[in-house]
């Protein structure tokens, strides 16, 4: 909401010394937040004066343009009193017109300095200005882009033109919260200013009204719930060519709207002044009784923005004998619109039910100044005075005659009193607000207060539909006292329990990943099936079951993702694109299952839902397990002056997950798997306690290509929740044997497809309890072991916890280990 300061001051007697900054500071602290202060013409310096065009000679030019060589009377402003010669390229003015003239020495917005200069064969000494050149913007003036022609008699040649352009005006733009609809009017803003400075307020709707005799245009309201008040007034003999007076046009402009014609401007002006949206009809186009009802299915209306609209039974409409003529409170119809030939005007000032306004506006995607006020709730008592004000302005400036007869259907519903403790504001704010102060402040904002001991019976004023609950009134008291007066007191919570187990473990996982050289990224969880195609997922892959968004930002990514890999691969692709050749990224975030079980109920809000209701709510949500995903590209250890580095391989992906499971006290098992997007021969299924938790390995070459990654990039994805729920909370302290260790190395030859993990498991089991550790330290394939075979070299460490091993014990354990490996895997000792 934009409001010129002069208009505010028209309705409140602010002390002269209160400047605009002080005014806006106070209003901000009362809840009308300052957005900006505009000072039009602020950038313009030097002589900017009224000029009268004396002569104007069109001169066609070789370039096809026609310029006007003008002489302009600028009085004594040029120091000589002689006419000023000025070349002008615009044509929307004529000799005799008053125009805005900037003389040499003036500077226009953007630092554009004016001087006398030779152009088109003349010396042009100044400029005749358009709105755009004055920095007023093209839509700030009705004749967009053209020269500003001042109304006849607006001023004398040579006079400073700034006051005529409103350049002495300051315009305050407020950000109005949805609960303060009353502040979408000068009435409301001035009222708050009066409250803030304890200054006298002049209410624009306080006026003597003609009696509501029902003798005006016939109106029937079939839906009094939807339209509790409908006021109709009529004027005749209106001069459709009458100009809008400058003060009205200027104020409408300054409020951010566009002047259109006197009849329309007057309704907008009164809406800005009072907060009451008003609609004017061309009475000659209205047939018979005006009715208000809900629309019927199949009814249509062309609104005055030219849009044909299908109406529904929730829409409140205004009708006449011809059918629907307006969407009540939201937008009028084209057929009865006021035009250049309108001489009789039907003025409608009606109060509409806000929820219906909100729904209709939303359904038809109409955002209008009227709708904005009606859906937030206007003051129902303003209908009659606002309509009367419109009639007054139409008769004063449009030559119209007010027809007798005032139709008022319905009446504002009385507000119900709310009972509350006098000390509520004190209890809510923590400020020492005594009861008397609270009562005085409630009355100051317009409430009627009846004191009943320590209880108050408070009736809110009609312009405050937002005040319904006791706590709402406490906010009124507190804002008048001042939010800046709220003291600062730290509450004392009971002893807390710190982070939860999952929260601590998730942090541990993040630190572990960072410690392993991975960089955390955050990616958007939106994907499309195309992303899954790039991963090479099969048609029946579970990860293709996705939760779909009704209103995605991009049609290419309408789903919530089931895997972190697309986001991570895209991030990797960007890193490669930015020239980073070796890097590793990870993300820990929830993924989303396709659906829960059934709809989530909309539960009541006037009580706690039952446990059964909450359970139903919970079940309706899709599972959202937290995953850990990672991608590594390029070198794991970099090359440099120390020698050649090491490129990442499938085992880096496994090892990174193993690092995480180690950090959680879990043992990670692996076995071969073939799953997209991994290389079918280089993908490990990862298990903890026999449960598959995820996969790791080298990416399929086609996936690397699809995401622009170098070959042999690697990735892993695990369900972190599965790991966290198994994490070991209390790890026993290790006990070390201090007796000498016996080392036995064995080299075992097996078929190439025998997993090393099987051989190692057999060795472990066969070696028995003396085995302290077994470590695979070499893998050999080649001539010495033969085609299709491989040699695995293991280092066994054997030790007893309570004695030194006697001769032969270690060898016996080794032999037993080898024997079992031979039996289980066909291994032969090399």
């Amino acid at each position, binding site marked *: 909401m934009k409001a010129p300061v002069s208009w505010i001051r028209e309705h409140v007697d602010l002390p002269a010394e209160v400047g605009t900054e002080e005014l806006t500071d106070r209003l901000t*602290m009362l*809840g009308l937040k300052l957005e900006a202060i505009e000072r039009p013409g602020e950038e313009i310096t030097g002589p900017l004066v009224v000029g009268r065009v004396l002569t104007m000679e069109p001169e066609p030019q070789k370039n096809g343009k026609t310029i006007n060589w003008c002489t302009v009377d600028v009085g004594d402003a040029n120091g000589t009193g002689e006419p000023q010669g000025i070349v002008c390229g615009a044509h929307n003015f004529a000799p005799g017109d008053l125009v805005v003239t900037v003389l040499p020495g003036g500077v226009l917005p953007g630092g554009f300095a004016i001087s006398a200069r030779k152009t088109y064969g003349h010396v042009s000494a100044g400029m005749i200005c358009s709105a755009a050149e004055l920095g007023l913007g093209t839509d700030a003036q009705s004749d967009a882009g053209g020269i500003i022609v001042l109304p006849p008699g607006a001023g004398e040649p040579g006079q400073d033109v700034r006051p005529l352009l409103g350049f002495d005006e300051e315009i305050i733009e407020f950000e109005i*919260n949805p609960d303060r609809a009353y502040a979408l009017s000068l009435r409301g803003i001035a009222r708050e200013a009066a409250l803030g400075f304890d200054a006298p307020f002049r209410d624009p709707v306080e006026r003597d009204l003609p009696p509501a005799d029902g003798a005006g245009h016939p109106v029937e309201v079939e839906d009094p719930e939807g339209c509790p008040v409908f006021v109709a007034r009529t004027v005749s003999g209106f001069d459709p060519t009458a100009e809008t007076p400058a003060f009205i046009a200027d104020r409408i402009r300054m409020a951010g709207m566009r002047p259109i014609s006197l009849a329309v401007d007057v309704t907008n002006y009164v809406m800005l002044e009072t907060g009451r949206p008003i609609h004017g009809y061309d009475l000659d186009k209205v047939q018979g009784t005006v009715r208000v009802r809900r629309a019927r299915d199949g009814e249509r209306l062309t609104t005055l923005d030219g849009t044909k609209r299908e109406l529904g039974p929730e829409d409140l409409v205004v009708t006449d004998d011809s059918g629907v003529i307006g969407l009540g409170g939201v937008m009028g119809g084209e057929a009865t619109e006021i035009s250049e030939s309108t001489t009789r005007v039907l003025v409608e000032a009606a109060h509409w039910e806000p929820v219906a306004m909100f729904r209709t506006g*939303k359904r038809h995607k109409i955002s209008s100044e009227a709708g904005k006020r009606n859906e937030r709730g206007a003051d129902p008592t303003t209908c009659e005075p606002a309509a009367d004000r419109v009639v007054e302005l139409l008769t004063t400036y449009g030559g119209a005659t007010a027809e007798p007869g005032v139709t008022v259907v319905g009446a504002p519903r009385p507000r119900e009193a709310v009972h509350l403790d006098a000390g509520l504001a004190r*209890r809510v*704010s*923590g*400020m020492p607000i005594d009861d008397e102060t609270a009562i005085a402040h409630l009355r100051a904002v317009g409430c009627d207060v009846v004191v009943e001991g320590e209880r108050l019976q408070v009736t809110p004023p009609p312009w405050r539909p937002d005040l319904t609950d006791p*706590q709402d009134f406490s*906010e009124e008291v507190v804002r008048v006292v001042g*939010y*800046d007066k*709220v003291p*600062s*007191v*730290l*509450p004392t*919570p009971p*002893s*807390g*329990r710190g*982070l*939860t187990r999952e929260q601590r473990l998730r942090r541990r996982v993040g*630190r572990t990943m*960072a*410690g*392993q*050289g*991975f*960089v*955390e*990224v*955050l990616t958007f*969880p*939106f994907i499309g099936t195309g992303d899954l195609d790039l991963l090479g997922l099969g048609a029946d892959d579970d990860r293709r079951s996705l*939760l*779909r*968004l*009704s209103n*995605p930002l991009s049609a290419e990514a309408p789903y*919530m993702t089931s895997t972190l890999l697309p986001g991570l691969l895209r*991030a990797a692709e*960007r*890193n490669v694109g930015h020239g*980073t050749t070796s890097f*590793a*990224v990870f993300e820990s975030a*929830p993924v989303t299952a396709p659906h829960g079980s*059934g709809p*989530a109920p909309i539960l*009541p809000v006037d*009580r*706690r*839902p039952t446990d059964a209701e909450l359970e139903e709510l919970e079940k*309706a*949500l899709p599972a959202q397990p937290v995953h850990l995903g990672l991608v590594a590209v390029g070198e794991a*250890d*970099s090359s440099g*002056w*120390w020698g050649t580095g090491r490129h990442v391989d499938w085992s880096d992906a496994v090892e990174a997950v193993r690092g995480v499971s180690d950090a959680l006290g879990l043992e990670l098992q692996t076995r071969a798997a073939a799953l997209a997007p991994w290389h079918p021969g280089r993908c490990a299924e990862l298990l903890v306690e026999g449960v598959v938790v995820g996969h790791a390995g080298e990416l399929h070459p086609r996936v690397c290509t699809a995401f622009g990654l170098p070959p042999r990039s690697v990735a892993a994805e695990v369900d972190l929740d599965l790991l966290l729920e198994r994490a070991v909370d209390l790890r026993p302290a290790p006990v070390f044997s201090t007796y000498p260790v016996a080392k036995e190395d064995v080299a075992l030859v097996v078929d190439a497809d025998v997993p090393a993990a099987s051989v190692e498991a057999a060795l472990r089991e066969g070696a028995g309890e003396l085995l302290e550790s077994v470590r695979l330290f070499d893998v050999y394939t080649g001539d010495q072991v033969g085609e299709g075979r491989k040699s695995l070299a293991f280092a066994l460490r054997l030790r007893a916890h309570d004695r030194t091993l006697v001769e032969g014990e270690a060898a016996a354990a080794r032999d037993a280990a080898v024997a079992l490996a031979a039996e289980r895997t066909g291994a032969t000792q090399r």
Partner: protein
Amino acid sequence: MSGPNTDYDPVEVTPLQAEEVEAARDAAIAAIEQAGDLEALKQARLDHAGDRSPLALANREIGALPPQARKDAGQRIGRARKDVSEALAARQVVLEAEHEERMLVEETVDVTLPTDRRRAGGRHPVTLQSELVADLFVAMGWEVAEGPVVEAEWLNFDALNLGPDHPARTMQDTFWTEPADHHVVLRTQTSPVQARTMLTRKPPIYVVCPGRVFRTDEYDATHSPMFHQVEGLVVDEGITMAHLKGTLDHFAGQLFGDGIDTRFRPSYFPFTEPSAEVDVRCFVCRGVAVSSAGDACRTCRGEGWIEWGGCGVVNPRVLTACGVDPEVYTGFAFGMGIDRSFMFRHGLEDLRPLFEGDVRFSAAFGTEI
């Protein structure tokens, strides 16, 4: 090891003259002194203290001497051999020290050679900022509450006094999921976590809820469809706006530095009443609004204060819907953007680097913020 000279041939016996022993000793010591390195010393040891050295040979002959001469010669040769042995040991120490010194000089490297053998890992600054905020509140005895991102409409809106026709619903552009009649949304705020907390535990409640939230905003320098919020909720007996102010002042001081406080402006949120916008004093100009150079402060754009978030006293309607008796308990709630707080705390003007995944960005923050 030589045994007694049983096969000793007395004919070959050379007399053990004192002068000859002296000479052999002197020659030995001279050779030891002249040994320039450990190799030369080894040779000198062989020549003068080895089995074939003059003194060793002389020593062997002692047994063949008459008993009265034997003692005399034994003493003389023994002394000479001791002198030689001591000289060897001393020279050994000197030469070893010299050798070590030379070796260390030869092994000198250029220690300014740079290395970057290992990839540097790092955590995302928004994660770190969330954890930092959580820690500040945990230090006060609060707890950290969490909830799902894909959330029930009722918890995201209705329970928070945002009924189906509440105009404030249009202020939040919500991602809805299909089918629409399942009433499931991507949470637009972390407030449903507050509702969940009230629904599942009894007051006193002191929790912060950091997390990711979603709005249908096109992605640009200042908007993102996914961003992060932290909200706080207190429900206890006798809680007032003053406690809210105290908590936010403390929070601001912890996050932005001692003496940084907050101010309240009236505002509107459906879930709180009274409601306030909270501004934090600019931690760069400390509210003065001008920089030390006299220009308008860049961090707060010359305002002295930075818009931080929203807050208020929990609306009794919310308490009722969440099963808390508003006659017994009052509460306060606040919320602010984690990404936004990070941005002005660390001077980031465009938010997109937060979600682009460029490793250079996160890596710059390491593992603490």
